[in-house]
């Protein structure tokens, strides 16, 4: 199968589950910096054939070249983003200064503004010599402070900890014992009510919302997390759940 035919099939498969804004896929409608960079890494990890991935948020734009699920280089970046030392050259795992510069670029892009993040994909020539050229998503995750989840902490512990600043209150139970708590005090009765909702062994996340408030119950085995949050934090709750889902 030719590259073009394979590319068309891969895009067709990928397109089934995407939202679109014109020719751009909407990766997320809103969310914090970590959610943005997680989406960027997912896109790199989904890129098998050499492609130019252009990410936009507000007026900011970065164009990356990826291939074989690896970041090979930075093709372009909008004015104001720190990419001068990265443009049009290949990057590899030995180049610590380039990895650090990539980190600065991703931080600048992820923090640039709020709003939707979109991506377009176009064919591109490779920027590295062989199939192992570039930076793997695992290496990027580590270099960009998205370290793997600590296996000694239960997944729901990570889920709760990552929502520390996003939710009004949250609590984790292991059996009947309180093993974690975030947010404001004084919401015990509300959280008790959430814990009392019918739930199977999971792993499952349940959310109930009105326009004024929202609660969630996450369950995995004997661990349960109850959350009280403002409806506009729904994206953060989803991002945290998505982040730990790979650990189940």
């Amino acid at each position: 199968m030719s590259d073009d035919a394979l590319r068309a099939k891969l895009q067709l498969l990928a397109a089934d589950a995407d939202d679109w804004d014109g020719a751009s896929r909407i990766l997320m409608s809103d969310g914090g910096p970590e959610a943005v960079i997680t989406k960027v890494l997912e896109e790199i990890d989904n890129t098998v054939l050499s492609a130019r991935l252009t990410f936009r948020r507000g007026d900011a734009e970065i164009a990356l070249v990826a291939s074989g699920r690896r970041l090979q280089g930075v093709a372009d970046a909008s004015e104001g983003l720190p990419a001068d030392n990265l443009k049009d050259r290949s990057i590899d795992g030995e180049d610590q200064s380039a990895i650090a510069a990539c980190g600065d670029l991703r931080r600048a892009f992820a923090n640039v503004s709020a709003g939707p993040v979109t991506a377009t994909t176009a064919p591109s020539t490779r920027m590295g010599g062989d199939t192992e050229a570039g930076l793997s998503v695992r290496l990027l995750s580590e270099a960009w402070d998205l370290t793997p989840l600590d296996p000694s902490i239960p997944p729901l512990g990570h889920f709760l900890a990552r929502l520390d600043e996003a939710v009004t209150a949250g609590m984790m139970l292991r059996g009947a014992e309180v093993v974690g708590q975030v947010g404001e005090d004084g919401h015990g009765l509300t959280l008790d009510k959430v814990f009392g909702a019918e739930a199977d062994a999971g792993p499952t996340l349940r959310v109930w919302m009105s326009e004024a408030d929202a609660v969630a119950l996450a369950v995995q085995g004997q661990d349960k997390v109850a959350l009280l949050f403002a409806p506009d934090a729904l994206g953060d709750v989803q991002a945290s759940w998505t982040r730990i889902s790979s650990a189940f």
Partner: protein
Amino acid sequence: MITGADWFSRPPFLHSMYALARPDGFNGTFGERIMVAQVLDGLTTRHGACRIVAYADLSSNLVLVTNSGVKAPREALDALCGQAADAFAKPPIASPESCDVAIIAHGAETLIYLRHPVVQTDALCCVCGAGIDLPSFVQDARDCLGELTGPRDGAEAAG
């Protein structure tokens, strides 16, 4: 006005394209059925991670109309409707009657249920992939339900 019997007598392709009929008849004209299906199709078109959207009556646990690409059996859709009714039975939020969205994320599937804040028997039951953008989808689905049932403030819907 079309009755349930009239609906079942129509060519099968129309069933698959536009609607699943309620045995006691959906209180809408054929054109209104198509309009409902188009609204539901719009939602799945804008949100590719959403595969099924069903406009349902929670009081009878019956799906009235689905988006046009749905191939799921009628019984499965009605079961989905039953799950929606269960999800809204005892929502653990401060004012349970104001709860209009329930979400269940499990594995690669996310089920999203919305009920109209005024006509609480009218609901959307949505089956989506885990990659659905929840904030954007919920807002859009609320608007769709408002378009189908009436304004969320009850200006016309209550009648």
